[in-house]
């Protein structure tokens, strides 16, 4: 009898212990999980080539970045020099960002070669690297999220091909002989032109200076008066060339097509100086860049190259719902 009673007491004790365990253990795990969830925000540092609220391209990209950040609940830090050419400032920022030990860094490299060792440092620190907008001479990073410049160039080439014939003569103003964007776009233009690529008379370089583009255009036009088609491979090249044609009184006669979509370009398109422009989608680029960096942190594997897209826009298609969004950012109207 005494033995049985004690075994019954043991059993009661066991029940109490089990109950407490069954309650306490999952509760502790749950609390822990909650705290982990709260503290486990993915952190990404975005280092731009240029951080400028007044620039449509870069501010749209930031807008896209913020969309991804709120959608995936990511802690995103924005960095970037005021000037695109200030690679030294950017290199310092890369080092700062590495010291912050984020999960990933989304980098818009300032320079094709000078940025390389700094980008390598990011990878060496074990931080996931996603490149946006531009690439470098060495293949670095898990993924490149950028406008497919070959594809963008091809759109320009294909557009002009419709109006070209064997007597056409074409001039190209490019931003730089070494910039990957220029090289790719030119390649795309040639692809798009197909058999008419032989009609390209000259490729001139403006080194991202609209003034220089203007001068180069005038020089080319003097050199090859038969040129009836001009292609500007970036904003400065396109604007410089368009201004030159306008001043030469050739707008409307000479076909001109440009890359990018600054307000001035859009106005000149509306005005009829440009026949078409190819716009990039910086908002998409920012969104996809951060989303990809997030996926790289979460899953490890991501696509190597993601095209954020481009769109060829003519005078007729400026005010379609879709294109309005690309060409006229909201910030314009904010007071």
């Amino acid at each position, binding site marked *: *009898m005494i033995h*049985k009673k004690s*075994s*019954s007491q043991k*059993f*009661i004790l066991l*029940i*109490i212990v*089990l*109950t*407490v365990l*069954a*309650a306490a253990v*999952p*509760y502790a795990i*749950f609390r822990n999980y*909650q705290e982990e969830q709260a503290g486990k925000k993915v952190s990404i540092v975005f280092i731009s080539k240029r951080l400028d609220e007044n620039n449509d391209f870069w501010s749209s990209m930031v807008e*896209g970045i913020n*969309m991804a950040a*709120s*959608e995936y*609940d990511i802690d995103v830090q924005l960095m970037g020099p005021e000037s695109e050419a200030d690679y030294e400032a950017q290199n310092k920022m890369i080092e700062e960002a590495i010291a912050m030990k984020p999960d990933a860094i989304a980098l818009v490299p300032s320079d094709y070669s000078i940025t390389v060792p700094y980008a390598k440092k990011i990878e060496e620190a074990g931080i996931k690297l996603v490149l946006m907008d531009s690439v470098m001479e060495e293949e670095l990073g898990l993924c490149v999220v950028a406008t497919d410049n070959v594809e963008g160039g091809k759109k320009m080439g294909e557009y002009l091909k419709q109006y070209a014939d064997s007597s056409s003569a074409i001039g190209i103003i490019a931003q730089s002989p070494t910039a990957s964007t220029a090289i790719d776009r030119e390649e795309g233009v040639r692809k798009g032109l197909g058999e008419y690529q032989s009609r390209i008379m000259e490729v001139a370089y403006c080194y991202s200076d609209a003034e220089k583009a203007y001068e180069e255009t005038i020089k080319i036009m003097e050199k090859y008066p038969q040129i009836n088609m001009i292609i500007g491979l970036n904003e400065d090249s396109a604007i410089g060339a368009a201004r030159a044609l306008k001043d030469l009184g050739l707008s409307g006669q000479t076909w001109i097509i440009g890359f990018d979509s600054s*307000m001035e370009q*859009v*106005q000149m398109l*509306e*005005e*009829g100086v440009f026949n078409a422009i190819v716009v990039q*989608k910086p*908002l*998409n680029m920012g*969104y*996809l860049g951060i989303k990809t960096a997030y996926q790289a942190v979460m899953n490890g594997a991501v696509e190597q190259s993601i095209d954020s*897209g481009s769109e060829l826009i003519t005078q007729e298609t400026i*005010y379609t*719902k*879709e294109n*309005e*969004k*690309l*060409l*006229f950012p*909201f910030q*314009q*109207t*904010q*007071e």
Partner: protein
Amino acid sequence: MGERKNSLRGRMILSFLLIVAIAVVSFMIISINRSSRAIKETSVDYTLQLIQMMNENIEFYIENMENISQIVISNSDVRNYLLAEENAKEYLTKVEEQFITLKETRKDIYNIGVLGVNGNYLINDRTVAVNNNIKWEEMEWYSKTVEEQETIYSSHVQNIVSKEYPWVVTLSKTITNPLNNETIGIFFVDLNYWAISNLAEEMKLGQKGYVYIVDAAGEIVYHPKQQLIYSGLWEEEIIPAEHQDQDTAAWETSTKLYTAMKLEVTGWRVIGVTDLDEMLSSTNEIIMMYYLLAVILIGVAMLLAVLLTDKITLPLRRLQESMQEVESGNFKVDVIEGASRDEIGDLIGTFRMMIQEIENLIRRNYKEQEEKRKSELNALQAQINPHFLYNTLDSIIWMAEDGNTYDVVLMTSSLSKLLRKSISNQNELVTVSEELEYTRSYLTIQKMRYKDKLKYSINIEPAVADMEIIKLIVQPLVENAIYHGIKYKGGIGTIIIEAGYKEKGLIIRVIDDGYGMTEEQLEHIFDQKETDERNNGVGVRNVHQRIQLYYGEAYGLRIISKIGQGTIASIYLPVGSGGCNDT
């Protein structure tokens, strides 16, 4: 517990637990379901309230535009200006004044304008440069106004002013000539789109929630991810067909909860989107709470089950223990008194009665056995051999005839002792010395009869003298010694009787140096067939039987004999009087 897999108690606890667990778990599921539904309902209500507020704000803007349009359209100067071919400037100044006043009062108004069919127009004020690169007649909002007389054209880029490309919502109306009802122009007012997008952006529906607006045609007026949607990077079913006609509606996908409300004035719809995961994150806590509650309830239930079943099965287990005791032979178990007055109580009562009955039966059986044994013992008790009695009496007669009075007295008194002992039935047991005294009487008589042919001696170890043994076991052996041994021996025979300890037992030996017995005789001495009334073979066997009957098979008689040398008869008895059948 646990001593048996299928114990009644175990099964009771298990079924008890099962019932409680099912009850608790279903209670939990229902509650969780209810609370998550309640959370959703609350969220829908809350979102509707927010949307309602937002709608009021939007309607305020729209009404304001409407008011402006009323003011402008009802202004005769405007009509006059649009109709005027001359004096236009005069009217223009007046209209301009009105426009400037209207624009000043409302910061959210971007443009106010009238566009005359005849080419007269005014946008904001005279300093504004019109965008020459476009023709407003070709713009969609314009053609739509001409078609519908009145329209609200949702978010678009207003390009009418040179170098300005604001996002606006345009309210426009045709202006007619009251005389002939002909359209003479169009009035429009542009509301800064930012005013509306800001309302939507500021509306907080949790971290991941957002608000979007669609117009009556289902086109997006505002969506935070409008461009992503156009690019195919973001998918959203803007408004499902089945909810298109409802004033308020709520629907959900696997991840989001949508709450929609229609704006009466514009036919627009404001849709609030709440992230389900985020919203239901609080349900996780509720689930956790319910889980804890369930665990505690089940724990308490288990305790109760153990305690209750302990109480219920306690009498049963006691009964079981009692039964085990009974099984092992103890009938004096204490079957619990005061058992409950339930089925188990009845069972215990019956069991108790059964035990008593069994015990009575056993007792009766034992008594009967005892009586049987006693009667057997009595039956076996040796009587004085009648031949011996007869011979003795003969001897007495001869001695009396010879006048040998002393011998007659001696023999008669010995015989008298002998007879008295033999017939006294009072006690089964006598002391060793009493028994041997009796034997001595017998030997006295025999010695007198055999004259000098018999010699004897009796040795008792003092320690055993007072030990009790069953009576009349030595004399038959002496008788046997005389008739089988001494009688056939030529010359004097000697009988020695010894009583003493040996190997923790009591041993009484009758030793004679008579003729002895053959092996055959020895073998048959305990055999019933070889009875020889005269020679008293019965006596020896009888002694052996009685010893065994009384003390058990471990004890008894052993006889060693050799022809020409003599016989030793040994009685082995336990020390003390305690026989195995002692009552």
